[in-house]
């Protein structure tokens, strides 16, 4: 019962890889977008805000369809990538990571943006009067103070990526060993006669993974809070 098959293990490692890459993609963009949304006021602020949160409210299938249209071999972005770099993302695990990243992006931005808004700009002004350049203020004051928010953003994005289904299956299909992450593999097993035991194993694995991630995040958040608040 508790001996997963190689296919199931493959689904697990693929899921972890896709989720890790998804976080790696969303983190720099998320940090930058959160900073812009929290600190800058400009024409089109509301529009940018809307676009960033769109994946949260749209059916994931719509995002998947959009990605397919953009990144498919015939799509403008897909054709460009293929012609210049020889890369295909549709129907590959890289595509799965992109789909997961887009779905996780709003969660990442939201968590970091809230922590940006909680940093008192007066502390940053104080650091400036002490001779620190804006760059030094950012990494020595702002970044440490928002680190709990960044951590929360990472965990949320990771968890969301692990669970991504709709956009992934629409964009990159369900190919074992390439795009068949845990939820997709579970879906396949349920559809297969006699796949119940395998499905159950993967479900238990998913639960264990989610629980571990949550516990780790709680612990890290506690450590970060301790560091910030003393």
């Amino acid at each position, binding site marked *: 019962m508790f001996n997963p098959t190689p296919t199931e293990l493959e689904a697990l490692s693929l899921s972890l890889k896709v989720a890790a890459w998804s976080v790696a993609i969303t983190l720099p963009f998320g940090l930058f977008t959160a900073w812009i949304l929290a600190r800058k006021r400009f024409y089109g602020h509301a529009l940018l805000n809307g676009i960033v949160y769109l994946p949260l409210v749209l059916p994931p299938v719509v995002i998947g369809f959009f990605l397919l249209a953009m990144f498919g071999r015939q799509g403008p972005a897909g054709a460009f990538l293929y012609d210049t770099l020889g890369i295909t993302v549709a129907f590959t695990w890289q595509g799965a990571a992109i789909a997961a990243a887009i779905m996780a992006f709003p969660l990442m931005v939201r968590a970091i943006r809230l922590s940006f808004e909680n940093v008192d700009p007066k*502390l940053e*002004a*104080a*650091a400036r009067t*002490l001779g620190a350049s804006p760059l030094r203020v950012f990494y020595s004051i702002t970044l440490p103070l928002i680190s709990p928010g960044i951590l929360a953003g990472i965990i949320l994005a990771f968890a969301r990526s692990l669970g991504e289904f709709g956009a992934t299956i629409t964009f990159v299909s369900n190919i074992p060993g390439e795009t068949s992450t845990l939820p997709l593999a579970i879906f396949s097993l349920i559809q297969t006669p006699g796949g119940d035991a395998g499905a159950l194993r993967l479900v238990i694995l998913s639960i264990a993974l989610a629980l571990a991630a949550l516990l780790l995040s709680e612990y890290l958040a506690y450590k970060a809070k301790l560091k910030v608040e*003393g």
Partner: protein
Amino acid sequence: MLELNLTHRFQEFQINLAFKAKQGSITSLFGRSGTGKTSIINMIAGIVTPDTGMIKVGEDVLFDSAKGINLPPEKRKLGYVFQDCRLFPHLDVRRNLLYGSKAAQNGKKITFDHVVDVLGVHTLLERKPANLSGGEKQRVAIGRALLSQPRLLLMDEPLASIDIQLRSEILPYIEDLRDTFGLTVIYVSHSIDEVIRLSDKMVLISNGIKQAEGNVEEIMSRLDLHSLTGRFNAGAVLSTTVESYDVDYDLTGLAFKGGTLRVTGVNLTKGTSIRAHILARDVSLMLHRPVGTSILNVFEGTIIEVADEGGPQLDLKIDIGTPLIARITRKSFNDLDLAVSKNIFTMIKAVAIDRRSLGRSALD
């Protein structure tokens, strides 16, 4: 040393101000809350950009709207002690103190050990700001500003959030900053007691506009400014020098232009310059030299000005070698038949003089 000339329009009012501050002295910006004092030092610090004007420290131009010069705060080399301390919550006291010293280049005239010693914060170095009391936070904030090796120290109501007990503990530190580090201090406050105690010079601000500027003695002796300096605590400020000390009675003689003022319990070195605030309501008047009185301080003088605003009380300015202000009832004023240029004896109870209000003046 500091020289500025600023205009800036806010929604509610306009700031229009010019003043100078001397090297190694404490200059106070005094005015009620909401008169633009904090905005003014934010402009000096470079946190707020004024509409027009000029700010200069020595020969160094920090801001000049005509020439398009506007140095960012980190290039101005000024220390700023904020009303709310603004210690960095994620750094311990030691790293807070040292935050500004990394960028400081102009020699390390002010050393870490010296600051820690003067401010008495050795036991706090490993603590986080969240575990400090209000007074401790304020001392760390002062130390942090000092260790950035500033040319000028800006202090925005540093005592406002501290209880009265601690205030009298921190006030001497601020005098020490001027005297031991030769620092020029710009001190913002709405407490006339603090201003009298600390300042060598004060700039009186109302609605963003300078109403008067001069040394504390001058400003406080002006009857027409009482509505701005506060009626309740109105009273002349005498510049004095410690002259003698009577051990038996714990009485100190403070020499001033009109004689010797005797006060209790000020054991300071002879020659120290002291400002004494004599509240107008603690001064009484007699037509003839009093005999058989418990009052130690009797000075003869001439009435030079009467401020009559129609109420039951009047303020009188009396020249006793230096201006002194007395507040008396209209009844006494009429009964004694007082008028300008009349000769009079003034009496000040030695015990009425608040020892804590006695501030050291800048060394010349």
